[in-house]
């Protein structure tokens, strides 16, 4: 990344998924790599299961908020939330999203109210079809399965962080990101998180390469 440039990442997901840890990991990695970092975070009320986001900016940001159309990357832990913040992604930016869908109570109520039982939940396919109207670089990761492969279902975040460093213009070196992951996850889970990180990285590299 050239001096004076800014790399913008929009994190999003659902309250309780560990978005703040994700932000802390990349924040530490960025700072340790000598970058300036600025974030705009949504804290506020502590209810679980609301829509949440972090504007994460590396390089030369001046405002805590990414302008619409200027995010280089979206990193999402829940697929419907990816679409919710799509205005921030630049044309042909990278989307890394979990394939996880957490149905909202509003949808569940609609299903329950439909006597003919024709109403369906939104699918990952429907969402990616929309996302692809903004960018061709959509990486959908089965983060839970990959986490299970890594040996711990709670390492989904590391899968997603691992995926970021597979992207060509991602400014923070892979080693620094991995170091930050391993420094900030619970000590007992270091090995599983390390495997999850590597899995996320290699799968994302395959997706973008193909």
């Amino acid at each position, binding site marked *: 990344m050239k001096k004076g440039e800014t790399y913008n990442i929009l994190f999003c997901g*659902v309250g309780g998924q560990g978005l703040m840890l994700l932000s802390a990991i990349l924040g530490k990695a960025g*700072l340790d790599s000598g970058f300036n970092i600025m974030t705009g975070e949504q804290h*506020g009320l502590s209810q*679980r299961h609301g829509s949440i986001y972090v504007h994460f900016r590396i390089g030369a940001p001046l405002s*805590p908020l990414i302008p619409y159309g200027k995010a280089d990357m979206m990193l999402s832990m829940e697929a419907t939330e990816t679409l919710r913040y799509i205005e921030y992604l630049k044309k042909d930016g990278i989307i890394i999203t979990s394939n996880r869908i*957490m149905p909202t109570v509003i949808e569940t*109520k609609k299903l329950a109210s439909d006597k003919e039982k024709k109403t*369906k939940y939104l699918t990952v396919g429907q969402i990616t079809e929309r996302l692809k109207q903004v960018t061709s670089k959509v990486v959908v990761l089965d983060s839970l399965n990959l986490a299970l492969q890594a040996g711990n279902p709670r390492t989904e975040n590391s899968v997603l962080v691992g995926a970021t460093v597979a992207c060509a213009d991602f400014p923070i070196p892979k080693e620094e990101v991995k170091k930050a992951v391993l420094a900030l996850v619970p000590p007992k889970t270091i090995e599983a998180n390390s495997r999850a990180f590597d899995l996320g990285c290699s799968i994302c590299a395959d997706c973008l390469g193909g």
Partner: protein
Amino acid sequence: MTVEDVKRTDTGNALLLANEAVVRGALEANVKVVAFYPGSPTSEILDTFSEVIDHFGDYKMHISSNEKVALETVAGASMAGLRSFTSMKSVGMNVASDSMFSIGYTGLNAGCVCLIADDPHAHSSQSEQDGRYFGEAAYVPMLEPSTAQEALDMTKWAFEVSEKHKTLVILRTTTRVNHQRGVVKLGRLDRTPFKKNRWQDIKGPYYTVGEVARALKAKLLQKIDAIRADFEESDFNFIVPGSGTVGILTAGVSYDHTREAMRNLRVKLPMFKLGTVFPFPEKKLGEFLRTISTLIVVEELAPYLETRIAALAHTYNPSLKILGKKSGHFSEMLEYNVPIVETALARVLGKKPSMDYDAILKKAEELKDMLPERPPIFCPGCPHRGTLWAFRQALQQLRIQNKIVFNNDIGCYSMAFLPPNEFSDSMLAMGSSLGISAGMEMALEDKVIAMVGDSTLYHAALPGVVNLIHHNANVTLFVLDNAVTAMTGQQYNPNSPYNAGGHEARKINMEKMFDALGADSVTIIDPYETRDCIAPIKKAMEADGFNVIISRRDCALYGDRLKRDAGEIIVPSENMKDICRSIYACIRDFYCPAIAIDEKDHKMIIQQELCDGCLECRQACPVNAPKHVKVKGR
């Protein structure tokens, strides 16, 4: 992580949330007494002080019962010669302001700083109140930082201003400053041991009334002049040089957006960045106004800077053209961002924004047309869900759904106004449900119901309770006792046996208190035994007089944390599909985010990773389908 950075003794760089930077600034200023009532977007300040209190062991802290008590606590400590600090959300100052206006008159002794955080966009507040008027109205100096670094530096400086001029200093922020994280250069941390003073050595008069007040007012005006003179020299009021005769005046987070907007537009307009929103550095500002012919004022919320700079321009540059809210270039609504500022600047300069933001938003809106809302909702395991379900059943059984008025209050339970409950007829401010109920009880034939949480009860509802009992009012009061101040992050309150840092404190005995006040009845229910709650609720609603229902169960987030800390396993529930008859009572009236429908068989399924195992849904289910089936740790 960042709380560790707050403790660091070196002067290197750290990535800090601005709220943490404020804590660091106060610690570098050797603060000795802190007191808070939590409120978004300031809660992390309280939480951070609470987390590092034992590490430092050289300051004292209260989680106060409300913001007025907190402000009085730190004012008292300042009078007694110790540096002190409090913070509160915008509307917190409404509560505290009664004393704040008098503190302006009496002045203080040791450095005393109060942060107030406005919430443009009302992300987590009942209004977009603009707190900048407090400084001017109370003759209390007010500073406004733009970044995490300034949050640290200004907090430290605020202590100096306060101590030099023997005045309270207010630090004003907005949500986007409090919740921005940035790289901060730490300052020296020179803490001294905690030591009490003797009143005889430091005492001063701190009272104001009548003749005394008039004399104090005259001195106060001189004090403000002296502070203004200091602010003329402050580096926090500075000019960013640029070219041309169109200039900008801005402060706070708008400065950040404006800088980036100018970079995007590839323009460099001369810009005055104001750090002291009261009093203004009038000469410095006036000189700046003389160098330009048009001024663009960039500020969120009310045209506070705009109207004051217009008055100043009369003296310094009467022909100055001022563009802002009154000219229609900016809105008094909501919060700003780079695109909003960039579009307004582009319009003034006759340029095009760096991107077609409107087209991007329009396209995004089309792409999102199928997207379901994800509104705020009670957490899985939340006891409020059960209480409100039982309340609804009671209303139906008594057939009085249309013969009640429901006055709600401030807390997680405010969400009772949303589906599936939609109960709230009023919801104004902390403790307001009681006062509103007093008026409605006189004016309406209906049954009057008020609802408060435990923290709100002790915050501002007690005078309203006393008032209702004293006037023999017919009101049913629900107290949702979930052990902590849940909404802001489960802080302790007078209903907890703990205070800051988890130190022991005395828990107020709620039922004894209501008894002693003379409530006609006090009934305790357990919202997890949801069906059993219906009968006592009905009884309380049918009775005359002031009847209290205390619905008691730990906040699920707090309770789960206690369980995890104790090594206990949280057992999620499962829906027994052979029993389930797809009645969907668990969905229609319940709205638990852990509950979904299996599209294969249209039976309810409980999402295991979300479920808290509270089994309130079993209580709502006519056929008892949800059960704990197997023990799985989380």
